[in-house]
């Protein structure tokens, strides 16, 4: 029984100019202990999909579809029911830890608040658990640091506090929205290793949203590539990197500057990311796709299984997609 099963998730925002369809039919499943990476660029809808699942959309956003967690649909769930699950069974950490932490409260207060709310423990017991969790995320001198304010910690440490807070109630799924994008690369390496260890120790499933394919390669077993609000390709990480089959994934991997390849030519994907207020008809990628045909401009391809666990949304069959020779 998968932990999380998402079916035809749609998110729409109503603005002055137009209705923006940020997410247009997302499907995926998440098993226990699995790590799923959701990869996409701006306008892909990756963040909005997860925010919709946790009931965190902006006030002008509407979500439709099904996100089944333990038999209940997260979409459309009442606020009260959602509050019992959020922070408790499903946790989330965000990109900028400074704006996610309350600058006026000490770390202790923010962490014990989570425990007191969900686990009904005394303040003292909550503090003990908080300190041990801070130690688990490798914050030095945890007992002393817990009394500090967010601005007294560095960016990397604040992100660790966020992770600690998210794991306090031992959630089943941890959603991480670009958790390391704002961090320096050496600090990012520390945080990624931490996430790997925590997943190993606690068995938490992780849904990692990022634009960085390198991060995904190191942390995720399953990868879902999104573009223009739709899923383009979804499979396990090894297959995605070794045998990408969707023109967008191929283009993305080719456009990526890599340390392990001796600086040859980078091939960008021509064109610009889609304007979600006026999305292109048919397949959202067709205007930038080297393999696009007339069909692509009219019909959005459905997400179909190629093999078990490997889904792609493209009119072109796998063997007809242009694959260039890999970097010299």
């Amino acid at each position, binding site marked *: 029984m998968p932990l999380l099963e998402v079916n035809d998730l749609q998110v729409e925002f109503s603005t002055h100019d137009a209705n923006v369809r940020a997410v247009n039919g997302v499907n995926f499943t998440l098993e226990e202990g699995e790590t799923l990476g959701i990869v996409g660029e701006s306008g892909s809808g990756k963040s909005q999909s997860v925010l919709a699942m946790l009931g965190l959309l902006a006030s002008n956003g509407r979500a439709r579809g099904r996100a089944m967690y333990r038999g209940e649909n997260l979409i459309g769930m009442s606020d009260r029911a959602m509050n019992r699950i959020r922070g408790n069974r499903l946790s989330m950490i965000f990109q900028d830890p400074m704006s996610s932490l309350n600058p006026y409260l000490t770390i202790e207060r923010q962490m014990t608040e989570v425990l007191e709310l969900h686990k009904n423990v005394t303040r003292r017991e909550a503090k003990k658990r908080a300190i041990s969790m801070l130690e688990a995320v490798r914050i030095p001198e945890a007992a002393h640091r817990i009394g500090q304010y967010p601005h007294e910690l560095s960016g990397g440490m604040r992100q660790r506090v966020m992770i600690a807070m998210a794991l306090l109630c031992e959630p089943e799924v941890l959603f991480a929205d670009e958790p390391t994008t704002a961090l320096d690369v*050496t600090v990012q390496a520390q945080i*990624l290793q931490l996430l790997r260890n925590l997943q190993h120790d606690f068995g938490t499933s992780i849904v990692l949203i990022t634009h960085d394919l390198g991060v995904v390669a190191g942390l995720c077993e399953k990868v879902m590539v999104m573009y223009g609000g739709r899923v383009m390709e979804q499979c396990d990480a090894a297959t995605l990197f070794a045998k990408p089959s969707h023109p967008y994934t191929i283009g993305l991997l080719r456009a990526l500057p890599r*340390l392990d390849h001796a*600086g040859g030519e980078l091939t960008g994907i021509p064109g610009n*990311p889609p304007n979600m207020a006026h999305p292109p008809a048919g397949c959202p990628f067709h205007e930038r796709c080297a393999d696009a045909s007339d069909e692509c401009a009219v019909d959005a391809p459905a997400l179909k299984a190629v093999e078990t666990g490997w889904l792609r949304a493209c009119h072109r069959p796998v063997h007809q997609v242009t694959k260039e020779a890999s970097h010299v």
Partner: protein
Amino acid sequence: MSDATILSVRDMRVHFQVKSKNRLPWAPRRTLKAVDGVSFELKAGETLGVVGESGCGKSTLSRAILNLIPATAGDIVWMGATLSGASAREWHRVRGDVQMIFQDPLASLDPRMTVGQIIAEPLVEHRPGMDKQEIDVRVRAMMAKVGLREQMINRYPHEFSGGQCQRIGIARALIVEPKLVICDEPVSALDVSIQAQIVNLLKSLQREMKLALIFIAHDLAVVRHISDRVMVMYLGRVMELADKHALYDTPRHPYTRALLSAVPVPDPAVERAKTVQILSGDIPSPIDPPSGCVFHTRCPMAQARCSQEVPALRALGADSSAACLFA
């Protein structure tokens, strides 16, 4: 590509005075050493990549080269002429030859000017005799060169995407045909697929217009694709300055090695097999940098000497130099 050295920076220091911790008016002021002794040379048509993490001073260095932030000490020699203590008029002339591209593509464009006016501004400034017709012709030609459609000349920045805004920024920087362009994280704010477009554009324009580039970034992989030589900075000092191949294949400084191992590679097999050199602790503050070698607090090879001596940038072969006692 001529071999002439066009820019020579010697022992550049940029220090800021900050209020002391307890903010009492008589307490001694502390110094933030953003750049603390950086030296390098740049030849015509060459690309120097500058990498480093937060607080390393790379952005401040770029501002100081253009005197947008005054340097506290050190020499800048541009085309053979010393610029330290230069008058405003001399700096004005230099700015006609040295241009800058900024990190946030949209924010670096005045929202109330059209694209045409934005790109024309350096021409208006540095070629005062040029008439409107000529300026218009040049602006349109430049737009075509950077891949912008001519018809967009009267549009406003907010009507463009991030990648297009950066193209406008590039057009603006290149329209006066400078000899050096300083690029301050020009692709960090862009999507991956657009990054590649912009990097390729810069490379082709560099070849065509014979530009020298100083390319500042925190992404080592991007730097590898565009630079001839790379300078690694940490807390205001240069840790390693080497030819691109030397740096990426055989890094000599422990910080460079740690940095390279920390960059995630988009290949699951490689990622899982590699052992990342995790640096202990956080980056120290530039207000209170460690004594001796600034990296010694996090260095896996540190010894007692390291906290006492400041290692100089020593040449280690024809194309590489590092500031380490044990390199």
